[in-house]
């Protein structure tokens, strides 16, 4: 929002606006939008227009919910309308005459709570459900969230496009079940006589205006919820999963929990919206929740900007306005034109029926020409000044290290003890009975030809690859069978050989995701923004900037740049910064200097050395033997998954077995 105002306007207006602080401008914008939204029914007395606006708000709420699942967590859900249906039927059944079980004393407590009424019929007394709309809003949300978890759970292992298909399947199943269980839903005929909400004795009835205001309140609430979640530990975790699941897990994010949380919250939005929608229509049929509805909401967020909070609201409102006002008016104009010039065809054009065609065109064109949508989620950043760009290669390692690394339990001895570790991929033995001991505050280098199992060793230690047998002990714990996020939490952080940053997040966000396991704010805290949560967030930001500043002016001026825009060496540095942010006891570096020039290599080697002097234990994979000789206390050599040598760099360098592994059989005898 801020940048949308700041970057789009002509220079003169922008400079005038610049006098007003950005925060004030954003608040002013929100205030104006809110005022316009509140005044709309007073200015436009047309009930049909207000009715369309209320429907548009319902779809804006759906778009916000789907945006959490698709835009933030990156889980393409093609059956989102199912949750809309569940929320709608929940309220529909709880406030209509559809279910009328016989009266018994069981219902008396519910009668006191005014949830049901006793109703006299010829065949005996029956129960009439009359649960309040205001109670059902959160209850429907909770029911939908439950189904979100239920439908989400089986899809967790699937990658993107399969997830889409499974959700599509659930999206089909729910309306079919609704149609085939007429005792609860009245089947294809639809529920009838759903009660209208009442507020302090005022019955909403069929007038659109009160629903419009409830819609405004709901959308406002969901916008605030979404914004707060997005700018928190929770939102960062979702986006990390979206960008790179493996790296997210390795940085301490529990994928299962956060994916389910996204499904649940997205579904909850749809559940509450379904309740509002059905209260407004006072009926519910299975046809209202079929695949086209899911696609329509998807079109809205694609159009507005996947992942962008204001974008998806604007996208939903624009498309609804297009559908209910503009196409109708345009058709009328064409009819008039047809009568004027006497062309029969023009008099029968009904553009509103082509809305789905327009949706299809929008999907294709947005994907081909503007994937970021009308209002992109990522802000554009100003170019760096020459000063900021000019980085000097510095020697001597990090100056002024903040508190990195956590206290180690075992003051002496081995911090990491790998024993008898064997990993097989089908018939291939990637690691065979590997033994490795990393002493506290030591620097151990693992070397070996490509394919010798070095990265597999790292992947197994960090929980990404399961081991067939063996043990990994770390600081008094057995960590072999832990999930990657639990391994990080214990204090092992890593970098990847092929760099796995979160490309569409900023450098600062990348580093803050590294701190995920050390922060405590949960979804409720993120939502309420209690003082403790604010303090934690501010401190986290502070600490992340401190870590970025370690690398001089290489990363700090680029803190708000996307990781994807960084140079290769800076991406390596960001990855190390991200790992340091997790306050590790043990740092695993997988070829940290790969692709760096000699000066940069030395700079980084110095920095690694200073980390070690500061108390951090380091295990690194490195091909550059001069770096290994400079850093490592001990070198472990792997070949074909077996440890063939171990010792000081000097000793290993002269080992015949090692020479043969690296240079071939004949070289060893030269």
């Amino acid at each position, binding site marked *: 929002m801020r940048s949308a105002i700041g970057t789009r306007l002509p220079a003169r207006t922008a400079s005038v606006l610049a006098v007003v602080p950005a925060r004030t401008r954003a608040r002013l914008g929100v205030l104006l939008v809110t005022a316009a939204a509140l005044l709309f029914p007073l200015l436009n007395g047309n009930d049909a227009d207000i009715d369309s606006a209320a429907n548009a708000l319902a779809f804006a709420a759906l778009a916000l919910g789907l945006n959490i699942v698709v835009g933030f967590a990156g889980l393409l859900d*093609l059956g989102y309308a199912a949750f809309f249906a569940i929320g709608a039927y929940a309220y529909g059944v709880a406030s209509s005459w559809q279910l009328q079980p016989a009266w018994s004393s069981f219902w008396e407590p519910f009668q006191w709570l005014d949830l049901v009424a006793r109703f006299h019929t010829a065949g005996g007394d029956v129960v009439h459900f009359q649960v309040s709309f205001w109670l059902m809003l959160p209850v429907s949300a909770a029911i939908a969230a439950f189904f979100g978890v239920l439908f989400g759970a089986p899809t967790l292992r699937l990658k993107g496009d399969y997830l889409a298909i499974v959700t599509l399947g659930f999206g089909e199943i729910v309306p079919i079940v609704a149609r085939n269980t007429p005792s609860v839903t009245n089947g294809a005929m639809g529920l009838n006589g759903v009660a209208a909400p009442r507020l302090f004795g005022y019955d909403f009835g069929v007038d659109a205006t009160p629903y419009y205001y409830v819609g405004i309140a709901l959308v406002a609430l969901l916008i605030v919820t979404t914004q707060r979640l997005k700018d928190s530990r929770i939102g960062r975790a979702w986006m990390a999963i979206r960008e790179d699941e493996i790296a997210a897990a390795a940085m301490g994010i529990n994928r299962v929990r956060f994916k389910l949380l996204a499904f649940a919250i997205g579904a909850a939005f749809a559940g509450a919206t379904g309740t509002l929608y059905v209260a407004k229509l006072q009926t519910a049929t299975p046809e209202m929740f079929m695949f086209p509805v899911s696609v329509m909401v998807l079109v809205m967020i694609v159009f507005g900007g996947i992942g962008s909070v204001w974008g998806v609201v604007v996208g939903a409102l624009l498309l609804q306005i297009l559908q209910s006002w503009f196409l109708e008016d345009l058709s009328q104009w064409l009819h008039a034109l047809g009568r004027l010039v006497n062309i029969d065809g023009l008099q029968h054009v009904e553009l509103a029926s082509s809305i789905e065609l327009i949706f299809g065109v929008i999907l294709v064109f947005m994907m081909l020409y503007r994937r970021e949508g009308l209002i992109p989620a990522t802000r554009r950043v100003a170019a760096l000044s020459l000063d900021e760009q000019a980085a000097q290669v510095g020697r001597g390692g990090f100056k002024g290290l903040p508190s990195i690394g956590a206290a180690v339990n075992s003051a002496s001895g081995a911090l990491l003890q790998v024993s008898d570790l064997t990993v097989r991929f089908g018939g291939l033995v990637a690691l065979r009975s590997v033994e490795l001991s990393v002493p506290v505050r030591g620097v151990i280098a693992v070397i070996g030809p490509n394919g010798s199992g070095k990265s597999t060793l790292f992947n197994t230690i960090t929980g990404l690859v399961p081991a067939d047998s063996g043990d990994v002990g770390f600081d008094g714990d057995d960590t072999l069978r832990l999930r990657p996020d639990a391994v990080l939490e214990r204090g092992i952080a890593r970098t990847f050989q092929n760099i796995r940053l979160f490309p569409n997040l900023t450098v600062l966000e990348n580093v803050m995701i590294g701190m995920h396991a050390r922060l405590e704010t949960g979804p409720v805290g993120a939502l309420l923004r209690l003082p403790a949560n604010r303090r934690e967030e501010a401190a986290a930001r502070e600490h992340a900037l401190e870590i970025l500043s370690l690398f001089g002016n290489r990363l700090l001026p680029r803190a708000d740049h996307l990781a994807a825009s960084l140079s290769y060496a800076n991406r390596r540095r960001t990855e190390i910064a991200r790992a340091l942010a997790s306050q590790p006891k043990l740092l695993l570096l997988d070829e940290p200097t790969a692709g760096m020039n000699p000066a940069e290599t030395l700079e980084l080697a110095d920095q690694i050395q200073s980390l070690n002097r500061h108390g951090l234990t380091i295990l690194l994979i490195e091909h550059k033997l001069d770096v290994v000789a400079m850093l490592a206390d001990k070198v472990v050599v792997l070949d074909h998954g077996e440890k063939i040598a171990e010792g000081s760099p000097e000793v290993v360098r002269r080992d015949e077995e090692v020479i043969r592994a690296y240079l071939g059989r004949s070289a060893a005898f030269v």
Partner: protein
Amino acid sequence: MSDYGVLLQQVVNGLSLGAMYALLALGFTLVYGILELINFAHFNVFMVSSFVGMWALELLGLSGQGQVLTGLALAGTLLFAFAVTMIAAGVLGVAIERLSLRPLRGVRGTAAMITTIGVSYILFNVILLTVGAGSENYPNPLPVVRWQFGEVTLELKELLIWGVALVLMVALHFFVNRTRLGKAMRATAQDAEAARMMGVDVDRVIVTAFFLGSALAGAAALIFGLYYNYTSFIIGYTAGLRAFTAAVLGGIGSIPGAMVGGLLIGLIETLGGQLIAVRWTDVIIFSILVLVLVFVPTGLFGRAAPTKS
């Protein structure tokens, strides 16, 4: 008719539907094998082709099921209709690839899949807005010939469907395993980058996959029309989802898998409808889809697990 006879008859019906689903599933599998893309446009390439087939038959002066042809006239008519439908479908598939998917090559994430949903929507609505929402009576020159085997009735149209499906699948098998382009296709499916370095024109392979897959959908579409004697703008969605389930069940990316999966889904549809209830058929099929994806993501014949990220 005894229960046993009814079930046996449903097996015959299931095999006919299954042959159609198998042809349609092959299109999903060919494209997925190479691009790892679920092509939603395939649903409605099938639907549009059924109209092309209808128009081709009408071009020959046929309408409804009244005019019955025999002998050479029948063979010629069917050959013409299959050729026109399959070529038109193939061209449509290639056009979709060139216009909407090639520009997205190398874009990570779900952009390409969302595009195919958009294309599918466009095809769907173009037919809806031009032809209309009603069902079209499908011209069918096949004479009604029935053979009675005990309690089971076999119709000529069923033999035709099985024959066409068999010929096309054998031809596809031959193409993929015995020709140069087929070898390029298999190489690209294994590793597109490596295939490119070995001189395989990957774009040509992709176009071929789209052409073949769509042409098979065209054949399936004509079979649909001749089997059910109608077509409509909505047929793509249900048939497409069932065929996709067939591809997943067989192991997506696997050609024999798509064939076997198609037959299984056909049988599940008719027997499930018989034994449980027709109105739950879709729930059964989608449940299979979900269960297979969750528990056996490689399907029956699959090679690559779809869990890799």
